[in-house]
């Protein structure tokens, strides 16, 4: 096993751990701030997962994978384009992640303000004590 594959395995197993921990945190932690932190961890895990889907592991014997930036597009020829396509990672998941990060920011901010408002009403963020509703 070469080093890159080894690191990829470490990354994937830690991601699965992260996913389980984040879901545990969102559902079972009683404190709202910890729930929100777990939610951001879940979002980051999802984003890492999307990036790995687009990642290209060591495409050739000697060529490492490259960022999806087309250099020298002013005088482009076919071999350059072929080399680019064969070695660059997929840019689309990165665009998806960019969108998801922005959405995640908005949702997290909204949740934080909601938690602040809950603190003003109840004086606590422990969900076991925030129980005015019946069910």
């Amino acid at each position, binding site marked *: 096993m070469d080093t890159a594959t080894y690191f990829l395995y470490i990354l994937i197993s830690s991601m699965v751990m992260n996913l389980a921990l984040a879901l545990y945190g969102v559902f079972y932690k009683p404190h709202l701030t910890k729930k929100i932190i777990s939610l951001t961890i*879940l979002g980051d895990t999802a984003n890492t997962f*999307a990036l790995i*889907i687009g990642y290209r592991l060591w495409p050739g014997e000697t060529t490492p994978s490259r960022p999806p930036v087309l250099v020298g597009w002013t005088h482009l020829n076919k071999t350059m384009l072929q080399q680019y396509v064969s070695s660059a990672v997929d840019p*689309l998941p990165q665009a998806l992640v960019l969108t998801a990060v922005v959405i995640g920011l908005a949702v997290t901010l909204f949740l934080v303000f909601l938690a602040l408002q809950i603190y003003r009403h109840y004086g606590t963020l422990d969900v076991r004590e925030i129980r*005015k*509703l019946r069910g």
Partner: protein
Amino acid sequence: MDWLVRLATDMLGLTVPVLALFAFTLPLFTKVFGEKKYPGIHALIALIYAAASSTIIAAGYYYAGKPLLYAYGGWPPPIGISYEVDGLNAVIGLFTAWTLLFIGIYSLWYNHHFDEPEWYYILLIGLGIGMLGSLHTGDVFNLFVMIEVLSISAYALVAYHKRRPEAVEAAMKYAIIGATATTIYFIGLAIFYGVYGSLNMADISYRNYQLFTLLISSPTISIGSLIAVSLSLWAFTYKSALFPNHFWLPDAHPEAPTPVSAALSGLVVNIGVYASIRFLYTLYFPGSPLGVYRDIILLVLFLLGFTGAFVGALLMMVQEDVKRLLAYSTVSHIGLIYMAASLGFAGLPIGVVALALTAAVYHVLTHGTAKALLFMASGVFIDTGKTRSLSGLRGVGRLYPWVSTAFIMGFLSLMGLIPFGGFFSKLLMYKAYMEAGQVIPALLVIIVSALSVPGYAKAIYSIVFASPGRSAGYEKLKLRGVNALLFLMAIIVLLLGLLYPVIYSVLYKYVGLGLVSPEKADLYRRVFLEAYNELMP
């Protein structure tokens, strides 16, 4: 009618961006034209635009005879985002936009409850953007974005009365698990991209179709699709409050301002139903790589639907709070809709599956109209009685004969009485199950309807027929046309039943057969391929 088709295609691309423009210019215009009255009028213009454009889109689809596709930025479909409308989303989009317009008009009357109306109306337009975007989009990632737009507007609207601790608590309950569900859907999207290398719905459907015709079975694609669809369906069933994901709904819907309750209960829950139908019938048809898992997923949805319908009907009986009673009724009806929509098992005749889908969409229409009507009418009663409990609202309906008539008509439709729409949609469900040879589910539909009668009867009796106690000094409110609006909606509920033959044949032809029959369902993919060939340089 060529111009109409072209106009409809342009409107398909314009609806969501122009609505966003309306939403974001609202605070600016508010500073110029005044803060109390103007925001409602601005929102009303936006909602009239949405209703008009959804009507044009539906008419364009009708005249074109095939799905309409708008490719944003002129990029060929699987590369760029494209919006695609076929019978299913044309019908639900038309219904959503018009009902939202009614809710917008009602909000003008409800305006005195809002201390800063501009934020309310921005969020209401945002809700409209999210719903129409989720309905019209032909791209699973854009669906994620639009569901987030919809969700954030919905969370914020539930928490709108931020000085009420219950409202903030309900919004938190709704938002934190909702955000988890949409993030899980994003993981599902990444798997979709990993499996198919594409995020376009028609493209995924086309690839599945190719695998199906070439008789290729690949376990990687099957397992990947299974995981991706399961993760997506969790988000969709959460948004549509299917049991056991219904826990947020009986808290969130009553705590929201009344017009928002109407929008959430009548319209927003349908988006999840729509997305589930789209995934399980267009993306993954019988014989697709999902294979036997598709039947298992449908069976699970059926069982959850039945449990939700049953639990909702039972819990409705014991409710004291009128809005909570209506919220449990929503849980029950969503269960019924899922029961009908999950009758797509492989091997059933096309006619039967088309009938079941027609029943599901018909029930979406009848339930949505009646539920929006009931929430808006109960808002009038709650304002008069200053309470939401049924015992505090005894006989309040006697003050408003028109609103009470509309209120009773809405309940009769939900109950499923004969001349109203609710009867015919339930009849179609029953017929679909009988034709499929499933007697027990057919009987379950009737049992659930019967179980929900006491709850509705209790609400009608206490609000309209019970005599008000001596202590109840109700003051009659000025309705300023709301009674006419509610009565108009009640007439629509009645017409949905009286025009049954017309509506049934239209829905059966364009929604039922449009999703299920091979040659019509193929149009969805063929339009995509045409656009690809035309736009690809």
